[in-house]
């Protein structure tokens, strides 16, 4: 048996143990010492499924707290068997799990899980995002007044926003709390959040409707002037200046340029 056929057959056996019944493949293994071949192959199958399950679950510590290790592990194993990684870099392996959990029958009565696991994955992605430096607010001082409306901001590479119809922020608080008896008191409201990594640690911040729209517009590449118009159309009393100051202080942006 050629090496390529052997490796292809080995892969099939990991996913479908019955493949070991293939006589040609089976005959490549020595079977004259101790443990039977089926049990030996179980070690590999277990190593592979477990290591991938552990790798993907490592990004979901709060989900694990929420639904329990056993439930999440079972769901993740089902995900792994149908979604083997395509590369040896597993840092973001499992990012498609939120889509999987939406269709996973045993989680049908946990509708918030898709959004909550997505939030945890954004958190993980921010952890691995390339390093960049925050925009120094002093850079704005030298920009002529007439250019201010034409400013465009670039965001930190770790920055993402998320809108959900579930109170994900309260679920995060619950998962982090010492006393975990309060989940029943969750408000039935949605939330808007931003995730980013200002330095070594990832941060999660709640956004109100105005702030969320402000950041969406800037992230879409709108200038300050265009963003102000979008805000005014939706929230006539909104004031852009304090929002801009706040995010300059938070280090949300990494650079600024003037659109000519």
């Amino acid at each position: 048996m050629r090496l390529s056929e052997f490796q292809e057959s080995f892969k099939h056996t990991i996913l479908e143990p019955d493949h070991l019944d293939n006589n040609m493949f089976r005959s490549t293994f020595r079977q004259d010492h101790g443990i039977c071949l089926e049990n030996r192959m179980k070690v590999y199958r277990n190593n592979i499924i477990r290591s991938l399950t552990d790798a993907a679950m490592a990004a979901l510590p709060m989900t694990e707290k929420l639904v329990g290790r056993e439930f999440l592990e079972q769901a993740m194993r089902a995900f792994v068997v149908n979604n083997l990684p395509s590369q040896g870099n597993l840092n973001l392996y499992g990012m498609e799990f939120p889509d999987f959990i939406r269709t996973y029958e045993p989680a049908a009565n946990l509708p918030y899980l898709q959004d909550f696991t997505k939030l945890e994955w954004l958190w993980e992605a921010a952890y691995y995002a390339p390093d960049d430096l925050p925009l120094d607010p002093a850079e704005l001082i030298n920009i002529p007044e007439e250019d201010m409306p034409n400013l465009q901001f670039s965001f930190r590479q770790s920055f993402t926003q998320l809108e959900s119809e579930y109170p994900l922020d309260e679920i995060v608080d619950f998962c982090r709390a010492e006393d975990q008896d309060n989940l029943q008191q969750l408000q039935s409201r949605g939330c808007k959040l931003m995730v980013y990594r200002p330095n070594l640690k990832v941060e999660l911040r709640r956004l109100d409707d105005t702030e969320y729209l402000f950041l969406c517009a800037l992230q879409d590449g709108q200038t300050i002037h265009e963003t102000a118009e979008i805000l005014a159309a939706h929230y006539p009393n909104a004031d852009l200046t304090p929002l801009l100051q706040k995010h300059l202080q938070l280090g949300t942006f990494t650079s600024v340029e003037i659109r000519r």
Partner: protein
Amino acid sequence: MMKPYPYMDKNAYPLPDSPYRAAGIGLRAKHYEDILEEKPDIGWIEVHPENYFGGGTHRRYLAKARELYPLSLHAVGLSLGSDQPVDEEHMRQFKELIDIFEPFQVSDHVSWSASGNAHLNDLLPLPYTKETLQRLCDNIERVQNYFGRKILVENPSTYVSFTTDEMSEYEFMNRIAEKAGCDVLLDINNIYVQSVNHGFDPNHYLDNIKPEFVREMHLAGHTKREFEDGTILVDTHNRPVRDEVWALYEHGVKRFGAVPTLIEWDGDIPALSELVAQSDKAQSFIDKHGKSEVLAHAAE
């Protein structure tokens, strides 16, 4: 030319000719803060490069640790034994880390993980045939050319063996080193685990590996997995090195000298002090049986 990584002071690196302990430990995320604070007396640190691809917080911690210790990049994802070329993007990201962190050792395994578009995330066994030898050496040469340096390849832990083998594993390891011009990283625990799983004399294995190829050794704990028809030893890296493996290591130090030796611990990770104690124990065998010449290799 690549931009310098701004979060690390290369002037702070340990000098290649400074006094050097041969025993090192694997650095895992759980110990980032501890190692920077406690600065334990160990020779070097090892990490899996795949965990540092792309950047981010892990890489920042590694930069700080690198200012304190020499570094080995020990890969698990090149899949050198696959019947397909090593993934170009994987090599690119690995090379980026080599350029930033200037490791004294770069290594991966005599195994495969990738088949087609699937990466099976385990160090899977290879039949020891001339065809496998050729594929493996082609991939090692490709990697060495890309990195512009020699790498080491590690003997695997296996739970199956093959009727199609055309040579023993130790012969296979020697021939890889000869043919591909790489070095051998000898995992002592893997030899022991296999000797039980496949029924051979581990000392005979050690005695037949050519000493001139061995430039690093590994030590780790293993676990017994019971089945209805017997027990298999599994290379789990989740417990202290067993006495039988220490005995085999002592034999290895006598034969191969004071080569860099790593304590690997990847699951149920204990306090840093326990890892350091295991490293001290390895160092005591080195002090007893061999003189260190280790960083001379790094400076080559």
